[in-house]
């Protein structure tokens, strides 16, 4: 892998940019690999990268039915934060944040991790209680998260409306300064390039149509649109489509797949310097380096694999944005799109071994998987390589739905009394 640097850019500028290599190779699939990862999104590519880098397992293929990074990785609103309430969640998301900080250098690819701060707004007494509970727990877990007054919130994000005349006035905010955003495509491409450089095969346009198991039960490989590919271990990392794939191995999942829509505005000069989220008003916003306001909210109400959703969801999302930022009504929506998110009953992910030997699953990130990408890939690689979970992902089992040991962040935020 030829190193990227400002010198490389200068050198290539002199010779018409002719010397850049392919960022990743596109080999023909081999007949067998030690590990096959299904899904070349950030989590899958990250898993392959860490398998190679940290566990020395390089005989790895990442299979992708479309183009790499084309699922939720390339469709999300790229919010990164780790100010979760429970130890388990804070553990995995903060592991990710630590990896985000330094990921560009590790991958030699500028993923534009921008710790510009994530601010979560409180609009009523209940929100204050909930956010303060988070702040206290975060502090004792070593996760930064601080309380802001409305005036401090406005100072941090000047276009925010903190008028007490608002329908839902801002009464305070929790700010995680290490939170922020990253460039989604670059994450997929950076992992792909770095994994490819370590010998991982990235095979695009290769749809998995079956998971083959031996009579004794263990996984032996996958059927694909490009033929059978043998594998000692298979990791399913296909957000949105997990149920479909796991069904191929006879495992039924506690998952439902929902459309999640997002939109961007036309680009404008810098105006929103951080990420702003509100659970009560229900929307979130940041501004990309290109100048587009990046906006999202909740899912459509019905399960779907269509990657589209209803206009009324965008209505509600923009209602909320213009409630928080009345100055934006003259801005224009440039592009909207949908992804498919798989959601578990407790809205926490599953990163675990499965009842099938040699089959591992990483799913259920719901609407917030992007932020976990490096941490998820890192501990999932550990889980596959060692055939046992890393302590960080040990709580995120499939069994918790039998025992009741759920990690329910949303329930913890509770609804108003």
């Amino acid at each position, binding site marked *: 892998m030829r190193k990227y640097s400002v010198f490389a850019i200068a050198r290539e500028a002199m010779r018409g940019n002719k010397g850049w290599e392919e960022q990743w190779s596109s080999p023909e699939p081999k007949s067998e690999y030690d590990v096959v990862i299904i899904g070349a999104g950030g989590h899958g590519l990250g898993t392959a990268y860490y398998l190679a880098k940290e566990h020395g397992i390089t005989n790895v293929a990442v299979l992708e039915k479309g183009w790499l990074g084309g699922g939720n990785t390339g469709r999300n609103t790229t919010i990164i934060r780790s100010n979760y309430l429970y130890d388990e969640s804070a553990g995995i998301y903060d592991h990710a944040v630590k990896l985000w900080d330094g990921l560009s250098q590790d991958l030699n690819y500028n993923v534009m991790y921008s710790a510009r701060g994530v601010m979560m707004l409180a609009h009523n007494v209940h929100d204050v209680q909930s*956010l303060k509970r988070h702040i206290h*727990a975060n502090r004792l877990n070593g996760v930064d998260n601080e309380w802001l007054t409305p005036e401090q919130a406005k100072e941090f994000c000047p276009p925010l409306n903190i008028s007490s005349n608002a329908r839902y006035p801002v009464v305070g905010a929790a700010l995680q300064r290490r939170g922020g955003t990253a460039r989604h495509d670059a994450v997929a491409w950076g992992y792909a390039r770095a994994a490819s450089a370590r010998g991982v095969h990235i095979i695009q346009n290769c749809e998995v149509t079956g998971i083959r198991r031996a009579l004794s039960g263990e996984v032996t490989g996958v059927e694909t649109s490009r033929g059978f590919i043998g594998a000692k271990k298979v990791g399913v990392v296909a957000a949105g489509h997990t149920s479909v794939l796991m069904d191929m191995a006879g495992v039924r999942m506690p998952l439902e797949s929902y459309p999640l829509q997002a939109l961007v505005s036309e*680009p404008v000069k810098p105006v929103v310097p951080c990420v702003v989220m509100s659970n009560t008003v229900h929307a979130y916003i940041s501004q990309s380096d290109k100048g587009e306001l990046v906006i999202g909210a909740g899912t459509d109400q019905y399960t779907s694999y269509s990657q589209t959703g209803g206009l009324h969801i965008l209505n509600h999302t923009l209602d909320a944005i213009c409630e928080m930022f009345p100055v934006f009504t003259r801005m*224009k929506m440039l592009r909207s799109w949908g992804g498919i998110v798989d959601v578990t009953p407790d809205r926490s992910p599953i990163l675990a071994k499965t009842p099938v030997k040699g089959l591992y699953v990483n799913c259920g990130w719901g609407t917030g998987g992007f932020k976990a990408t490096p941490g998820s890939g890192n501990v999932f690689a550990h889980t596959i390589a060692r055939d046992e979970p890393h302590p960080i992902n040990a709580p995120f089992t499939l069994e918790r739905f039998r025992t009741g040991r759920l990690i329910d962040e949303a329930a913890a935020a509770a609804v108003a009394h």
Partner: protein
Amino acid sequence: MMQSFRIPGAGRLTPAKTMRFTFDGQSFTGVAGDTLASALLANGVHLVGRSFKYHRPRGILSVGAEEPNALVDIERDAARKTPNVRATVQELYDGLAATSQNRWPSLSFDAGAVNDLASPLFSAGFYYKTFMWPKAAWKSFYEPKIRAAAGLGVAPDQPDPDHYSARFAHCEVLVLGGGAAGIAAALAAAETGVRVILCDEQAEFGGALRFEAGAKIDGADGWAWAQTAIAKLSAMDNVRLLPRTTAFGYYAQNFVGLAERLTDHLASPDANAPRERLWQIRAKRVILAAGAIERHMVFADNDRPGVMLASAARAYLNHYGVAIGRNVGVYTANDSAYAAAIDLKKAGVDIAAIVDLRDNPSGPLVEEARALGIEINHGRAVIRTGGRLRISSMSVQPKNGGGERKIAVDALLMSAGWTPSVHLFSQSRGKVAFDEETKRFLPGIYAQDCISVGACNGTDGLAASVEEAYAAGAKAAKDAGGKAAKAAKPKVEASENWSRGMLGAAPGAGPDKIVKAFVDFQNDVTAKDIRLAVHEGMRSIEHVKRFTTNGMATDQGKTSNMHGLAIAADTLDKNIPEVGLTTFRAPYTPVTFGAIVGHARGALFDPTRKTAMHGWAEAHGAVFEDVGQWKRTWYFPKPGEDMHAAVNRECRTVRQSAGLFDASTLGKIEVVGPDAATFMELLYTNPWQKLDAGRCRYGVMLREDGFIYDDGVVGRLAPDRFHVTTTTGGAARVMNHMEDYLQTEFPHLNVWLTSISEQWAVIAVQGPKSRDIIAPLVKGIDLSDEAMPHMSVREGRICGVPTRLFRMSFTGDRGFEVNVPADYGQAVWEALWTEGQKHGACAYGTEAMHVLRAEKGYIIVGQDTDGTVTPADAGLDWAIGKKKTDFVGIRGLTRPDLVAAGRKQLVGLRTNDPKIVLDEGAQIVADPKQAIPMKMIGHVTSSYWSENCGRSIALGLLTDGRARMGETLHVPMPDRTIEVEVTGPVFFDEKGERLNG
């Protein structure tokens, strides 16, 4: 200023109707009917903007919504600033003030243009490869610089005084696009009597007839026919015409979003008129008549001001009467540009030369151009242009190399052919198919009840388009239930026919590595960027698009996508369909947030729910808190009191005398029917069968997973009638939960549920004097402890109106909840208030209510529980009917983790220093000296200063809490660690003697 490029006698505007406007502070005049672009061109202004990355000077490329370059800021006043307005769409009004964007210090001298010189450094995706060292510099230096350089216009900084409107509409036939095809389809459909809606993004219907001078329909020239047809449609009751309306999104089941612009073209709009209106239309059939968009030629320096699409130049001439130059060059790969050259020539503009990439162009237009004496250079390419802020020359060379000739021009028209607008078709989830012969993506497999007609369907020529569209309109109407159409089909008597054109970079346009042959103007994506992306391994068109940002600008690639695709395919040596087509995402053109929001701003963002007593509370100085959509009285400060003082007084008064509290927001459900008790047994953990009529019970509701879902007091009014209360926030979801079980799991039960939350206003009268206060007003109810003990309910009258009177307490003192029909709530409250004054009672709010109940250890669902708490955790296992064999949650409760040791249990917490009030949400640890991350064993759920206890009190959820009574634990705060003692949750009147006190 003179409009020196306005040609007398040309175009359709009335020269006498002049309008003043400014651009970058300079004053100009235009005429009514102009767009900002046509008015600027009339004044000879081509330079209108700077590009995104290289800050190259840019002119007007098009005449419509596909415009990538001419984006300006329009400022009506300080609060009405709109960035990124396409000058080609913005209609001129008197006094319009526009400024250019993305340049500093001025449009003609832009310091950012230094980027252009250093452009080899800024190859596609360069930012992924650098700015990584030193690590800290990304956030502090590189990113802020990049962000400041990016972006186009400036976001508004004041709240928008305009308002926006919305409408749902239904029709049988919705026609999207009001060119000749759309009009013909609408005519056919309208005649059948069905409801027809026809929209077009332009101010006037007519589409390409605006410039197509050769068209003749029903004996009139094309444009005139269109206006006649529109007048006819407009007179029909079943037709709605929506000009200035863009169909931006095509959703499931023929649901289409349209944005109508109502005032942006007016000099002084009515202050009450909405600026834009969102139409959400459900149509039985949709006819797509979106037309086609001309593509530019991709060659070196094809972006200089003065370089323009041929059809645009033609529209500026034929419609606006504006010549885009005096000495115009033409570069084309198809016939349609000839028509522009011919029209211009006839209008007296010199045509320097037509450069045609084709070896042997032929046909009537070519012949006509020749006959007019226009020089035609076939088999040749324009390999570069000269000039800086305006094109000054074009260099022509045989396409396979050879001698170069420089021709002076002041404008250059180009046409590489036409791209059918399949955007909406594709959004409808239809599958496009690539037509190899014509190199176009056309509608293939339809997914919804729609049909494409005319140019967007690849139908060439006006006659064929009108024919097809009329037939489609008639069929759609018939399929949607219309009568047979009368035969009034428009007759196309003359039209122009154009040949195909080309895709991708033009051959021979100079050496690849230095030239900038723009594919996407706004995002500064050149042919070599696309090639570089492919070279770096981007094989999918989605990768190419994202790596280069081709097609991701505000024009969404309307002119650039097909070129980019063709160049990528060429570089990969693949066929175009193998490389794929990027998804067409809504919206078709950018849509104002305000239009999407519509009425849902300010007070209409979300309902504000107020109780019947809200007015009284407001008049008595109450401070309110938001609880869901409700405004609840929080506390009633007297003059000089802060919240703390007010709450302390209220708490003290309630326990000394009494207090009045507005509890109306609690959810209330009337459960009626012979099986009411059976149903209640299934939905609540408690037993209900043996509860006597006239008695109440505190009920706990679980979800099937065993966690507490809601709670509330339930009164049995009669054997077959319960009055159930829920939490305020739980009202709607509890009702839904109960209906769900009743309808789908227990449909055999004869019981019905009715929400009565808003039928009854509820006044809690709590405190030792409560009975004395209500007694004088109540008729027909014996209030003695014997006749009406704690936890009973009676029906009778108060102040002469019906009441459901509950004797119950959420304070631990004697108390009543007076339910009265809501419209009487305020009057009964006033009567009670008057009585209360005699006993020194107060009005109290939710904060005092919270303190008083915490003193008694009563939980609040949603505060002391959080969706992970079982009845046992909350100390409520007594509320579970031990003999019951079924209720919702019975099985969930016994799952391994819910019965395991180490669960968090509700406890009381007393700070060692009684003056310290803990922070709600603060965490509890056993060992305060441990390092971070600390082992947290619980948290504070409720915490208050209790005036009645003379100390702070708190409730918390604590691991194995009930086994830790008396232990000292620690609450680490940022500045100190607070010691707390674990206690039972009851802080006041532990024996409960005051309930009858």
